[in-house]
């Protein structure tokens, strides 16, 4: 990348790019981190946000209206949209697992070249939290993954095989990084877009997983 972006700029850039793929009417569940930022860039009217802690119809909230008992899955304060509804955790995951949520946007630690992701545990560290990630992966009609293209040490996070425990055997549908956008077609990564400032050479260099261009 010729222009050096800040971490925040990179994250917002990814979120903005993901938002282009969302067309209403649809129900979207946003994970913690970059996915949460996607809400800022959605332009379509008919997109409703689901949060697994029990709300369909998440909106942002003004500082003065913050309610400590109205939060998203990241425990950040949110607001409620016109037409919102509240429900318990089993009803919420019934929506997810039952295939009623159109798109889940998740973060990932690794993606393999078939589109399988690892995002809940790191070997050698305690397995301390999984939350709703496994449910969203098996249940959402489409899964979009957002992540930085490489680890802090510069190694690719798009791998031939995940070295971390996988979150599901299900292959995700699209992968968004600060360098590129991939679609997963029949278990193969296809490069569909370069992000602003990225070159095909850089993507090739920083991607261990095989992909078609």
């Amino acid at each position, binding site marked *: 990348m010729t222009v050096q972006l800040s971490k925040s700029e990179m994250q917002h850039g990814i979120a903005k790019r993901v938002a282009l793929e969302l067309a209403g009417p649809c129900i979207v569940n946003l994970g913690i981190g970059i996915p949460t930022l996607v809400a800022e860039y959605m332009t379509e009217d008919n997109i409703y946000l689901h*949060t*697994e*802690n*029990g*709300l369909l119809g998440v909106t942002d909230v003004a500082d003065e209206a*913050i*309610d*400590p*008992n*109205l*939060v998203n899955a990241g*425990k950040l304060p949110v607001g*409620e949209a016109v037409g919102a509804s*509240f*429900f*318990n*955790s*089993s009803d*919420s*995951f*019934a929506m*997810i*697992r039952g295939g009623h949520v159109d798109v889940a946007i998740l973060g990932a630690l690794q993606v393999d070249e078939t589109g399988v992701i690892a995002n809940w*545990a790191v070997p050698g560290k*305690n*397995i*301390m*939290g*999984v*939350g*709703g*990630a*496994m*449910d969203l992966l*098996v*249940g959402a009609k489409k899964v979009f993954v957002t992540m930085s293209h490489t680890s802090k040490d510069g190694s690719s996070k798009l791998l031939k095989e995940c070295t971390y*425990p*996988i*979150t*599901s*055997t299900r292959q995700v549908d699209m992968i968004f990084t600060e360098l590129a956008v991939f679609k997963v077609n029949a278990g193969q990564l296809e490069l569909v877009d370069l992000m602003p400032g990225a070159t095909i050479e850089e993507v090739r260099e920083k991607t261990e997983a095989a992909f078609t261009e």
Partner: protein
Amino acid sequence: MSKIQHDISQALDCIKSGDTVLVGGFGLIGAPLTLIEGLTERDVTDLTIVSNNLGESGKGLGILLNQNKIKKGIGSYFTSNRDVGDKYQNGEIELELLPQGTLAESLRAGGAGLGGYYTTTGVGTDLAIGKEEREIDGIPYILEKAIRADVALIRAHKADTLGNLVYYKTARNFNPLMATAAKIVIVEVDEIVEAGELDPEEVVTPFIYIDTIVKAQQVLTKEGVVAV
């Protein structure tokens, strides 16, 4: 024989060492903070706590954890309290990690008298290790067992004097499920109203599930947990 109990410690007298206790809430949101605090003051140990999280460091169930009263935690996201990891490393606590939807569904199954259920969640992952896998109509599922407990500590917004409950926004979460899955259910609420004041169409937890009602003395506000 009123279900309303003003003495928190007496309300918690039913919890014995070694019991399995369900504790509502998603983090501190919808957690029965008054009852948790009451529990930290009682002389019970070796508890199995079923809750999405084990509080935060030094807050909510985190206090009980630091008192070494928890033998085992069953939940989906212990990450929210870094002390859990330390205790686990030191072999001071057992942990059972479940996907959040599985935790919720197992509680519902427990309350509904089911033995277990087949879910797609977790198939092919490390969390399926040791669990039965089977195909039904060509789709692979794993068997998850129902969760039942001795006591549930939950939080609701309003109770009527019979014990019918309504909740408040995302503070609902696991509470209505836990209300169904324990032998004894204690609820703390912001407000107690007369029977008949809640609309029968809007009652979320029918009074059949509730044994004891206490008034909340700890409330989550924008400024954190405060005594009321």
